[in-house]
């Protein structure tokens, strides 16, 4: 078990948030990737990720605020990207109640980013 405050090269997320590591695949750097991940997931998967992240969001943001955005340590950057994925996933969970946008546009003609 790594000690608090000691860098652990195997750890994907900062110490206080290591319990969220099962969701580390949601650390996606671009809006396009986060959008594609939402749309290709099942609503049940999105719901699980949403529930795991929502209660932790204020603590996550409080933690991340100590770093300038352009100089985030790698593990914190991943945590930030997971929080950005939560924003993306909430579209499905809170608004449409399904992974895709209802009456959304043809993806091949909608360039993001």
């Amino acid at each position, binding site marked *: 078990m790594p000690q608090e405050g000691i860098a652990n090269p195997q750890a994907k997320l900062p110490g206080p948030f290591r319990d969220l590591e099962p969701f580390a695949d949601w650390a996606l750097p671009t*809006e396009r990737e986060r959008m594609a991940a939402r749309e290709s997931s099942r609503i049940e998967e999105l719901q699980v990720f949403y529930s795991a992240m*929502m209660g932790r*969001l*204020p603590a*996550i*943001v409080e933690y*991340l*605020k100590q*770093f*300038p*955005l352009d100089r985030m340590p790698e593990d914190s950057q991943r945590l*930030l990207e997971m*929080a*950005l994925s*939560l*924003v*993306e996933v*909430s*579209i499905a969970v*809170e*608004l*449409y109640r399904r992974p895709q*946008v*209802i*009456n*959304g*546009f043809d993806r091949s*003609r*909608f*360039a*993001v*980013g």
Partner: protein
Amino acid sequence: MKTVMKERRWVEKYPDLGTGPVAAEPCISPEYFELERERIFRRSWLNVGNVCEIPERGDYFVRELAVCNASILVMRGQDGVVRGFHNVCSHRGNTLAWDEKGKCRGYLTCNFHSWGYDSSGQLKWVPDEANFFDLDKSQLGLTPVATELFNGFIFINLDPSPRENLTQYLDGLDVQLKGGDFDKLRLARCYKIDEKANWKIGLDAQNEVYHLPFQHRYIMPDLFLANEKGLVRVMDVTFFNRHSVYSCEMNPGHKPTPLESIIMEMAAAGASHCRLPVAGSDFDFYLIFPNFVIIFFRGPTNDSCVTYNFWPLAVDRTIWEIRCYSAPLQNAAERLAEEFALTRTRLVFDEDATAHETVHTGLKSRAKKYLLFQDEEIQIRHFHKVVEEHVGPATGA
């Protein structure tokens, strides 16, 4: 609340715009579209971007203006001046810059025979120059295009001698939009939608809020101030000759989603560092004729803006370019608030683009000859009137 909920307010204020039906033919007629190319797009000031996209000397971007059969190169010279050119080599007319954006380090060279231009468009290098005849490089720079700036937004005019400068063209809008932290803006995100619809159909669909509780029922059923029946009412509509602005207030009774509540709380705790001239409301939608829109959003601490450029490719095909601008972010809370705003507005584009096409499909059938506008859609009525003043009435309507 500043919004007056009374019905049929705007026709009283702007009786000249009338109340009758408006011809649908200009949205589907190929002949009309050909006239629009010449009488609107080749003679108007057209926005092509913002100076924040080319912050350093030598930075450039290219915009394909298919509607004018032109490729426009916008570049910041070593002297800091932003200039627009036709993106065409002086030798044999090849397209000079092929990338959508880039940096001119020394010379921008043509792929064909390596003719080189500096960042102010001057021809500086011709391989085998001595073998040409009477070649005067000083007269063979890139063909300039009239280029002017307004609050950092870059406008070009393809008329070789524009009849008005940009300030005259804006006709008071420049005064209305004076002040604000425009110099702080950065391009946060860009979306490009290739839609099978007439450019005016897309623009019209954006140019009103009547549709919000219906078409956007999943994402913003109650965001803007509405009357007791839930029908959105704009706070104000003003016309500046060809241009228009409408403003809305946010609904204080809006029910935020759980994530929205958390994010808004975090955002409200931040420090303010960007204010834009939102005209006493929360949302201002400026249509700068013919195809440019600037929308200002009042944020709890920081304002932001989104621009649309509707670029027609054909009577039934349009590239809807969307650029989202905001001040540099200071921390993760602001980053999340921005992502929230961006993703939610992206959903609006997603739902709207679909509807732009279904409207075009409907009109193309010629089942209906006319478009009907209610009082809250008066800004669209104004836009169609301005189009007709430029192009003339559609025959066959």
